[in-house]
């Protein structure tokens, strides 16, 4: 079987991947590039644990072939913040206990990072009363926009609080 060469720019660094074309972006990250922060919860786009940013937008890395992302800019949880400098969302998740087992957490934080951008761009959501109005990130808006990230420990209260704080500029 012929392997495919793919160039990925991940967290600001260039990576060359030579892999089976069947390799998903998620498996490439986890098992070829050893960036295991992105998690596999369902492998079918039904949980959000694998959420990463591709060219600034959140996607499910499990439903993406790595070879289709040649040249793309990818941000994973490892690129969102480090131990030395955590992002505001990471700090807020810590402060609000927006996680328990931690397995869905990288996906939640990547998702929230991109979601704040979507809201800033004025994208409406299913629960927005007015499609054309300004976006107010109240608890209900946050919950709807984060519903693609399932948390079985059910840290939803903390997740909504954490994102709400950052949306208001309340944390660091």
């Amino acid at each position, binding site marked *: *079987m012929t392997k495919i060469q793919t160039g990925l720019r991940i967290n600001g660094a260039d990576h060359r991947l030579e892999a*089976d074309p*069947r*390799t998903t972006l998620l*498996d490439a990250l*986890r*098992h*070829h590039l*050893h*960036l*295991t*922060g*992105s*998690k*596999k*919860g*369902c*492998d*079918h786009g*039904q*949980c959000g*644990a694998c959420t990463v940013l591709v060219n600034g937008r959140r996607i499910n890395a499990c439903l993406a072939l790595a070879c289709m992302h040649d040249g793309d800019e990818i941000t994973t*949880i*490892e690129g969102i*913040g480090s*131990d030395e400098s*955590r992002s505001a969302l*990471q700090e807020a*998740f*810590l*402060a609000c*206990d927006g*996680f*328990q*087992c*931690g*397995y*869905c*957490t*990288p996906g939640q*934080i990547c998702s929230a990072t991109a979601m704040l951008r979507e809201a800033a761009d004025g994208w409406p959501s299913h*629960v927005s009363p007015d499609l054309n109005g300004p976006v107010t990130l109240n*608890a*209900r808006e*946050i*919950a*709807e926009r984060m*519903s*693609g*990230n*399932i*948390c*079985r*420990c*059910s*840290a*939803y*209260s*903390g997740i*909504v609080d954490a994102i709400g704080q950052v949306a208001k500029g309340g944390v660091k």
Partner: protein
Amino acid sequence: MNKHLKMDERQSDVLADMAQGTVGRELARSEGPLKVSGRAVYAAESGDGTEAVGVLVRATIANGRVASIDAGDALALEGVLRVITDSRMVRRPAQGTANGAPAQDTSQVDHFGQPVALVVADTFEQARHAAHLLDIRYGVETADIDPETAREVETPEGKRLEQGAFDTAMDDAAASIDAIYTTPSQSAAPMEPHAALARWDGDRLTLHGAYQMLKYNRNELADALGIHPDNVRIVSRYVGGGFGSKLGIGPEAVAAAIAARAIGRPVRVVMSRAQVFEMTSRRSETWQRVRLAADRDGRLTAIGHDARVSNLPGEAFSEPVQIATHFLYGGASRHYETRIARLNRTCAGSMRAPGEAVGMLALENAMDELAHHLGLDPVELRLRNIPERHPENGKPFSSRGLADCLTTGADLFGWNRRNTRPGAKREGEWLVGLGMASAARSNILSEAQARVRLNTDGTATVETDMTDIGTGTYSILGQVAGEMLGLAPEDVTVELGDTAFPPGSGSGGSWGAGSVGSAVFLACQDLRAALAARLGCDPGEMTLKDGVATVSNRQTRLSDLVDEAMEATGHIEPGDTKQEMQQAAFGAHFAEVAVNSVTGETRVRRMLGVFAAGRILNLKTARSQCFGGMIFGIGAALTENLVHDPRDGHVVNRDLAEYHIPVNLDVPRLDVAFLEERDPWANPIQTKGIGELGISGAGAAVTNAIFNATGIRVRDYPVTLDKLLPGLPG
């Protein structure tokens, strides 16, 4: 050094005399920085990239034997190393605390979807495809997949109890309820799929796995493989949720170990999400008949709780649905009977609060029905029926804040604003109602050990094979040690999840904090005694705070006092207080729901849980545990239903798109309040379990609120919109 305590008597509250003030605080999780940055390493991620990948293959019959497996096509594929069938492979997970191998030999098929082989290849992509190419032939036998028609239904003697004159009490009652409730199979569905990575070093096996109870898991794995437990090390530093489904060793671990040995290379086996639904334990569906008899004032004269649950032939576990019914309410006459249908369905086992989680749905619905029938406030009905002692064995309660939880909760929630007439409150299309339920969950102490080391730099290290499955164990063990040794949280390192450490209790049964926390406490007591000896005083005369020991006016830094690391192991065991006292944590749930009068969709608008669970070690993680339980309750009430195909019993909705666990928008604002409580009979740190308390009764509060909103009583869980539609106004 070693300090051992058997819980034979009431314990004084030593922690209350400590000075550090770290226990009980609302501290962020100590391992949190690793988790929010993606650096906490879970089982499947612990390889170095050299490991081969195994994919389990499922049976496609409900009952029978594997006659043959033709692996030719699979083995012909590039990268495929081996197709493994081995009589040691296990066909279902071990039950919690089993301590021995579960059913072995995967050529025997007990249910559709059980593992029958493992395909091993260089890469995941190769193994996954090859797993679809096995040509498996079966000898098919008749299967039982429907509990209504099962050929074998047992009624074990130990699962029957009759007290007083039950039938007479029912006949003579001023008011009675006799209702049947059903709950479906459910799946724990933790976010991390079950995973194992096996590596052999000579005869020694190291298995990184996603498990809850390592000291048992080691014996289970060793037993399955036929090797000595000393040759097995299991590592589970981070576990992505368990909720019971990772209590026992599973097919992935045994298969990975066998495969790694066979090919002489580490092997990683991770279940697909579909396999998590099919191959890990489910919560049994239940059929429950609840009978209540009361006098005119609502005082219970009789309680009956009968059940039919199911499991595979030969499995000892049966969902103990009456567990809370036994002690929650009074009533002189009592009747219990459990039947167990033997079915060819995925193995039933413990899922978060086995017993209470579904048993209290029925009991607390029945109480609501009785209150309505009597025209009595549901809170008041419960208050009137709190028994002085255990109504069946007369044991006193070790501590019980039920009444306070009920009244405090009613206050905080604004319960007095509830419309007593169902269906009376309407907001546009929405019918709005309030509901409540009691919460109760037995408290258990489990044998546990932990080692605490006081380092020369004045910091401490805690070591035990205890796991943290999201419960907050890393944090609370550090807090207990910090409190006892006078250290700030950051000066205590907690190492968990490795059988190389002393055996803890494992995570399950809500016993982790009380059991391992007590082991840490005991070890620290020993260290305190040793420190006091060095200072030439009694431990009671010594104050430890912020790394400094103070005796009278003399202050000594711990780092100056400890010239060589000091180590102690604490060991706790259950004793007489288990037999003598009825121990349980209690609480009360309140919910407001809105039901759409057009579509029947139910949305929970707010929910409050008030709990009395002994000492709370960390307010933040404890609250999160309760939120989690309450949300499990919302799922059980409204959406969760593991559907078995009516013809072969296979799990039809074996994915997260169709097995509906609550998403963020399903969950409203939640509030949790803890009542101040200590339980001196439970353990020396005076805690009670909370991991399962939050789910116990939670779903019933939601469905009772649906009744209050609509006047419709659905007794068949979950309460999906199709069940409400026929009763809604046109």
